[in-house]
């Protein structure tokens, strides 16, 4: 209670500090004198009706107002006879005059018949928000801004998609082609290992985060966390700035280590009300992925696969593969189903977007609403999203400005159900598509009667079937998509209130107090139901007829009070800006869930219905942080510039002594091209600037209360509620700290027609946070939630090039942009326990690659065997059957034993580490016996390549011809290796899963020459981690092609339409790559799970789609 009081008081006093200025200004009570008069037109001397008459004080603040009646007469009770009156009326020239103690004022308004003359406005492009605004040319840190005008006409459902490939050093990779699988985003590589390597997102100066359940696994959460990017409508975005180096991101201190994405939304502008409407239609088609076997080919494979290991005919006698009409289920297993076709469809997106904006002298506004409806390319997926954003800016006086922003998003996402029971069932964590790829093709979608006609119920293989559990318990994906429910409803509302108050006359010097309070209210509801009809379990099983309902809500309050001071020097060579800020964040999160089963099947049911309740949980947490920051900017002659930042952050996440962290940053800039001695080259060298910078930024763990030894409930025993310690107290947990240096060069040629932006950087991260580190179980705990476990370096460079209308004729122009970057990370130091746990012994299992994390090396090195094809013969006969499993010496000669027979090849001959020895046979995979000892084991494992690209980047031209523009974009990666796990799983012939058609080339009998080994059901070592599945992942992708046509305004005028444009976009046109998998664009592996290896487990390439759009402005 006490602590709640305290936080309430804090919030109230913050609110008070907001409201206070109004009161203090509103105190000068007038004498209440009434003045009146008549307003007439100068042209016809007639009275004017509805004229605005306002009383204004010295700061041009409106203090009272009136409107003239039908006689043109007004009456106004004024606050002070010293104030002025302003009279305005549409079509007339506005007048302002002093009251000068008069009681009656008759005014004649002149009609505004003149057209406006040419007005030349000169303005310096400035960057920044609130009080801290510095000219863009004086920025000394590494940042890059993307104007969203460039994006016009692109169908992007989220911001990350739009940014992909556009910013040097920002690497965004879609996790897979499966719909909704999200992206992983890295600015300048990985600096943190703890998984939350995603950059901080800031919207209009306010961090845009979601508080995540402390138990949430960051390492595997790219999708979920970045799904929240979806709730910003890309149409509302004006520009995005990416802060790349620590000198820039130090202002976000403890959260900025992974870089910062600053999003600015559009605002209203003065002028008549404008209405814009945009409609886009997108059709998405899922391209064909792997070709899978037909029913006949599959059963043939299975029979061989079961026979081969022990040549046992009984093993192949499986009714479901036999096509025996006497088998009662015969009709259900004689089919030929293309499961991928059954679960996919053509997807489409309908996107409506309406904006109303405008404003006058005092206020401007922009209100937008969008509605998006999407059908996924996999059946059963449907997303609808309503989003709205309102921005109101009211200028109370020349010195006080008040802004309100409210954004609201409501999303209803009907997703596919995913099994999440961790019970070893073959459905575990698989998407509908993944199940479809595995499902045996000879079983039907619908149960069939004895004549082989489909009935109207879905077919599930009976639990009593003799099939292997891999297939027996694999659900019918069509039934799962159609019948099971997994609905996520999200509602998020973010109101922000801002105040800006100039304490002195801004014409003389700027002393500006700004303040904001922002609330982030986020509600999620998940509603899941798994009916019995989708599985072969009996209805009373706890996994079916089961409803999971969960709700979570979070509230975060951000508050910031800051003061900026910019004195005016008489010597205009100096410019100075000082800024101090105090920020507070407080928030809480709560979650409740309930699970019940044995519900009546059929209509999806709420978990609170009467049934077996298996789980009910609630959790709460709250968090607070505060920060104090000072910034300064000084420029001499606008070409010698120094910037400094110091931020001190405090957080509840750390224990006493470690609560606060300091994050300084300094950047310098020298604009050499403005030096007098450079005058001679100014003609062609329009910009030349150097930007060295240094800064420190941080990272904090993802959960709260780590520094306490906590006790939590633990069920009950004999009616007594059990309580036990749930965590080990982390006594010395510290901030993760990244120090970075950036050396930047700005180069502009020929009046900035060609612009280069080049950065070199190095980053050093220490006290790396590692989550969930194993500790000896004898402690009674299996993991420490976090440790500070090592340090790491990152080095890299990036080049950004932009050619601005470098070809230009009267009607035609071309722009071109290009970016290129690379980085390398090196592990400097790592806690020995961590090293040991990452470098576990080789496990002698199919499909696994040896991982090694070594000090002084970067992550992502791939080690494995060398694959040399398939043994053609089983028995070695010199001369005729050479290619058989026998050992060779270094000279390539067959090794003979004492009795003269050739020595056989073995896998793990010495049976080390509990692995079973295995003698290779004809048709088995050949692995290179590096040490020629006749045994394939860990000593034959070699380095096969690295997962990190040598280069990545993007480029594209924009062509404009009159009102038509055409925009192309390509992105690429070069020099990285990928483990093609999807192909491995589709070609291993080890389980009962369906395989790709490539296995039709498998070895079947002695003498077959092929690269595809024989089928062995759960036997042998034909798919060891080898270079057979390691491929070059370089690619060049034609990402999109857009045409945009604006109808000339001459044609539109008679329909009183302001603007009309049409667009057409083709997405993901073509990929050039040697990669044999479906798509070479593979997400990053987490160090914590597989030592940073890039593993492609996706069966589906990225969708190719097109969008048609129309945009109308009134």
């Amino acid at each position: 209670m006490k602590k709640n009081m305290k936080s309430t008081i804090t919030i109230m006093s913050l609110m008070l500090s907001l409201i206070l200025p109004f009161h203090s200004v509103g105190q000068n009570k007038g004498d209440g004198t009434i003045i009146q008069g008549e307003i007439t037109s100068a042209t016809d001397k007639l009275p004017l009706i509805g004229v605005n008459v306002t009383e204004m004080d010295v700061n041009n603040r409106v203090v009272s107002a009136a409107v003239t009646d039908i006689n043109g007469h007004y009456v106004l009770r004024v606050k002070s006879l010293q104030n002025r009156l302003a009279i305005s009326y549409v079509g007339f020239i506005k007048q302002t005059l002093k009251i000068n103690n008069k009681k009656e004022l008759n005014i004649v308004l002149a009609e505004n018949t003149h057209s406006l003359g040419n007005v030349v406005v000169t303005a310096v492009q400035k960057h920044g928000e609130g009080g801290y605004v510095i000219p863009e040319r004086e920025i000394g840190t590494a940042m890059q801004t993307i104007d969203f005008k460039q994006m016009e006409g692109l169908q992007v459902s989220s911001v990350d998609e739009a940014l992909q490939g556009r910013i040097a050093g920002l690497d965004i990779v879609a996790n897979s082609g499966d719909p909704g699988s999200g992206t992983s985003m890295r600015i300048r590589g990985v600096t943190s290992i703890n998984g939350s390597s995603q950059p901080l997102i800031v919207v209009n100066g306010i961090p845009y985060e979601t508080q995540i359940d402390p138990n949430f696994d960051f390492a595997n959460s790219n999708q979920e966390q970045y799904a929240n990017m979806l709730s910003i409508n890309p149409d509302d975005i004006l520009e995005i700035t990416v802060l790349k180096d620590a000198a820039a991101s130090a202002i976000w201190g403890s959260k900025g280590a992974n870089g910062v994405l600053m999003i600015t939304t559009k605002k209203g502008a003065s002028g008549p009300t404008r209405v814009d409407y945009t409609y886009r239609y997108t059709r998405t088609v899922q391209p064909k992925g792997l070709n899978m076997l037909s029913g006949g080919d599959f059963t043939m494979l299975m029979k061989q696969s079961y026979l081969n290991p022990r040549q046992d005919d009984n093993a192949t006698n499986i009714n479901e593969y036999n096509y025996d009409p006497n088998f009662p289920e015969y009709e259900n297993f004689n089919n030929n189903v293309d499961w991928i076709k059954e679960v996919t469809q053509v997807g489409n997106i309908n996107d409506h977007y309406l904006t109303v904006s405008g404003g006058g002298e005092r206020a401007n506004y922009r209100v937008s609403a969008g509605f998006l409806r999407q059908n996924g390319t996999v059946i059963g997926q449907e997303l609808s999203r309503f989003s709205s954003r309102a921005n109101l800016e009211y200028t109370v006086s020349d010195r006080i400005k008040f802004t309100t922003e409210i954004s609201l998003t409501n999303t209803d996402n009907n997703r596919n159900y995913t099994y999440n029971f961790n019970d070893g069932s073959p459905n575990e964590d698989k998407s509908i598509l993944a199940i479809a790829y595995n499902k045996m093709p000879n079983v039907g979608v619908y149960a069939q009667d004895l004549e082989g006609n489909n009935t109207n119920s879905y077919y599930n293989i009976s639990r009593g079937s003799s099939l292997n559990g891999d297939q027996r318990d694999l659900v019918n994906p069509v039934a799962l998509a159609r019948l099971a429910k997994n609905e996520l409803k999200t509602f998020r509302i973010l109101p922000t209130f801002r105040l800006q108050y100039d304490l002195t006359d801004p014409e003389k010097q700027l002393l500006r107090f700004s303040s904001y309070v922002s609330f982030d209210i986020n509600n999620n509801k998940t509603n899941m139901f798994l009916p019995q009809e989708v599985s072969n379990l009996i209805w009373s099983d706890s996994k079916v007829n089961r409803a999971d309902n969960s709700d979570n809500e979070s509230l975060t309050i951000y508050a910031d009070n800051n003061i900026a001071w910019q004195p005016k020097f008489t010597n205009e060579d100096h410019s100075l800006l000082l800024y101090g800020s105090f920020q507070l964040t407080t928030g809480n999160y709560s979650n409740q869930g309930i699970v019940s089963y044995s519900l009546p099947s059929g209509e999806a049911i709420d978990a609170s219905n009467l049934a077996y309740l298996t789980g009910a949980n609630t959790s709460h947490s709250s968090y607070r942080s505060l920060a104090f920051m000072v910034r300064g900017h000084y420029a001499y002659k606008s070409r010698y510039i120094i910037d400094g930042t110091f931020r001190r952050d405090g957080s509840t996440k750390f224990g006493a002594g470690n609560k606060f962290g300091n994050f300084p940053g300094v950047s310098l800039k020298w604009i050499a091209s403005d030096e007098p001695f450079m005058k001679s080259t100014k003609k062609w060298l329009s910009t030349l600037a150097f930007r060295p910078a240094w800064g420190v930024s941080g990272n904090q763990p993802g959960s709260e209360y780590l520094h306490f030894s906590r006790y939590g409930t633990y069920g009950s025993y004999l009616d007594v509620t059990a309580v036990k310690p749930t965590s080990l107290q982390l006594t010395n947990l510290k901030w993760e700290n990244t120090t970075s240096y950036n050396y930047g060069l700005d180069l502009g040629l020929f009046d900035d027609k060609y612009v280069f932006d080049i950065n070199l950087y190095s980053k050093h991260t220490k006290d790396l946070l590692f989550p969930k580190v194993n500790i000896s179980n004898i402690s009674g705990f299996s993991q420490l939630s976090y440790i500070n476990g090592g340090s790491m370096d990152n080095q890299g460079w990036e080049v950004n090039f932009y050619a601005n209308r470098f070809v230009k004729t009267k009607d035609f122009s071309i722009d071109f942009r290009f970016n290129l970057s690379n980085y390398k990370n090196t592990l400097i130091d790592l806690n020995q326990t961590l090293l040991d746990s990452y470098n576990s012994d080789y496990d002698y299992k199919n499909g696994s690659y040896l991982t090694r994390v070594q000090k002084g090396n970067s992550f992502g090195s791939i080690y494995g065997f060398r694959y040399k094809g398939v043994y053609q013969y089983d028995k070695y006969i010199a001369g005729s059957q050479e290619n058989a499993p026998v050992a060779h010496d270094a000279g390539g000669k067959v090794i003979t034993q004492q009795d003269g027979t050739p020595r056989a090849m073995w896998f793990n001959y010495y049976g080390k580490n509990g692995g079973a020895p295995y003698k290779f046979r004809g048709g088995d995979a050949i692995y290179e016996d590096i040490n020629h000892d006749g045994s394939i084991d860990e000593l034959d494992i070699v380095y096969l390549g690295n997962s990190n690209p040598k280069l990545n980047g993007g480029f594209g031209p924009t062509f404009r011809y009159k009102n038509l523009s055409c925009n192309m974009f390509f992105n690429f990666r070069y020099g990285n290796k990928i483990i093609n796990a999807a192909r491995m799983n589709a070609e291993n012939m080890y389980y009962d899963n369906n395989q790709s058609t490539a296995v039709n080339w498998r070895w079947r009998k002695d003498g077959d020459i092929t690269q595809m080994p024989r089928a062995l059901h759960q036997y042998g070592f034909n798919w060891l981690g080898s270079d057979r599945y390691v491929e070059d992942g370089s690619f060049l992708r034609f990402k999109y092609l857009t045409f945009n046509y604006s109808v000339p305004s001459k044609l539109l005028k008679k329909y009183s339409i302001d603007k009309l444009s049409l667009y057409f976009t083709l997405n993901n046109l073509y990929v050039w790559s040697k990669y044999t998998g479906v798509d070479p664009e593979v997400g990053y592996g987490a160090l914590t799970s597989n030592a940073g290896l890039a593993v492609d487990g996706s069966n589906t390439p990225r969708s190719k789609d097109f969008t048609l759009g129309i945009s109308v402005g009134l």
Partner: protein
Amino acid sequence: MIKRNIYIIGLSVLLLIGITGCSQWLDLKPESEIILDDFWQSQSDVESVLAACYRGLTEDAVISRMIVWGELRSDNMITGNGFPNARYDMQKILDGDLVPSNAYASWSSFYSVINDCNTLLLYAPKVVDRDNNFTLTDLHQVQAEAMTLRALCYFYLVRTYKEVPLVEEASINDIQNYSLPKSPEDTIINHIIRDLLYAQKYAKTDFGITAYNKGKITLDAVNTILADVYLWNQQYEKCVETANLVLADKNLKLEQAKYAYSHVFYFGNSTESIFELQFNENVQKNNTVISMYGSNANPIGEVSFPTTLAYDQVGTEVGAFSPFDYKVSSSVIESANDIRAKDSYALYGGKYFIFKYAGINRSETLTGASMYFYRSGTPNWIVYRLSDLMLMKAEALVELDGEANMKDALSLVNKTYLRSNEGQDSLSIKNYTTKFEMEKLVLRERQRELLFEGKRWFDLERIARRENSTSTLNDYVEHKSSGNTVSLGAPVLDAMYMPIPTSELEANPNLKQNPYYEETSSSSNR
């Protein structure tokens, strides 16, 4: 105007100082959990952590290990309806492929209970000063329970791994040393005995509620565990002495034959129960037993009893390995019509699936065929019951040798034997004349009586330890299947114990792998 500005600035500054000064503002305690500093204030805190110690033993991870360590490795279990993928590691053990990465090599669930006990033993004494209702007597009783549970955990560990780290300190923070080496076997056993002797002094004899008397540690439970420890440690006289303390309790008696099955295994908390872990349909289900042994929803469990040992398969030759229908000599047959052979397992499709724990009761039709009724509830897990203790004492008496002891041992065996062989003659001393024969008789009776109760592998281990050879153990285990089962026993004594999990060796540099599983050095030059 200026005055106003000063006022605003002043207020903002005050606000800044006010909040920064308050670094307490950053002290936030969890809302759904309690922190150590606020805990351990009252008797209820002590009681709830004690409940957690028991609750820890009802984890699936614990029950499954009691079954895997004590039963799955023995001759009593083979694959039943097939293991789901999650039980891949159980299949590996049945295949004789036991490696340090096997999930059942993990001991963490037992150490978790040990840590809860250690924590309780560290803080409970402090509560005496804080809560007047919590008296010294209360404290001693709580300590007796916690020490016994800790001893029980170590007893499981020492039987399974032989040597394990002995942790007595409660784990509180990340700067403590968790890299303890293994302690020698006798150090651990002495520690167990020391704890149990302390508990003997203070343990309650009666909680007043049957479920508590069976579900919590009573003096009988302390003594039974102690007897078992003495038996393991080959201190047979002490074992007999301690067992007699339990047998003196008149409240403990064997259930009558016709109710025995349903009272002991279905209703639970029977008169012969000494300590059983309590499960509850709504709060904590015994999932391991339901899925491994079966239930109403799925009578066919994941494991089954070997056909080679079932009563109607063998038993025709003298000295065969089935405990039922056992031919002692050409004329004497033991367990010819033993109801335990019908109550413990049921025949479906050529396999003997486990009925004990899975069923409510069995009834017989007029023709004598068995009808099995399966339970839909959740069974308690019996850790010790009276017949176990009786046969422990019998085993100790046989080891002590001498005519009187042999007679006493046989009469104890007859108590459980006759209950399940109604109308049969009692076993006669003339048929079991040697110590060897008596030893085997007790072993067979233990197998029949305690089938699937997590005892058999330890029984075989005791024999092997006495004989200093695994040949007897291997004889039994290899008969569980007709195929090649040579690798199923233990080639050497060290192989009877489980390997230490790989992850544990990585996390604790001071730990050494158990001898049989130590990696032989690499062999590039071989």
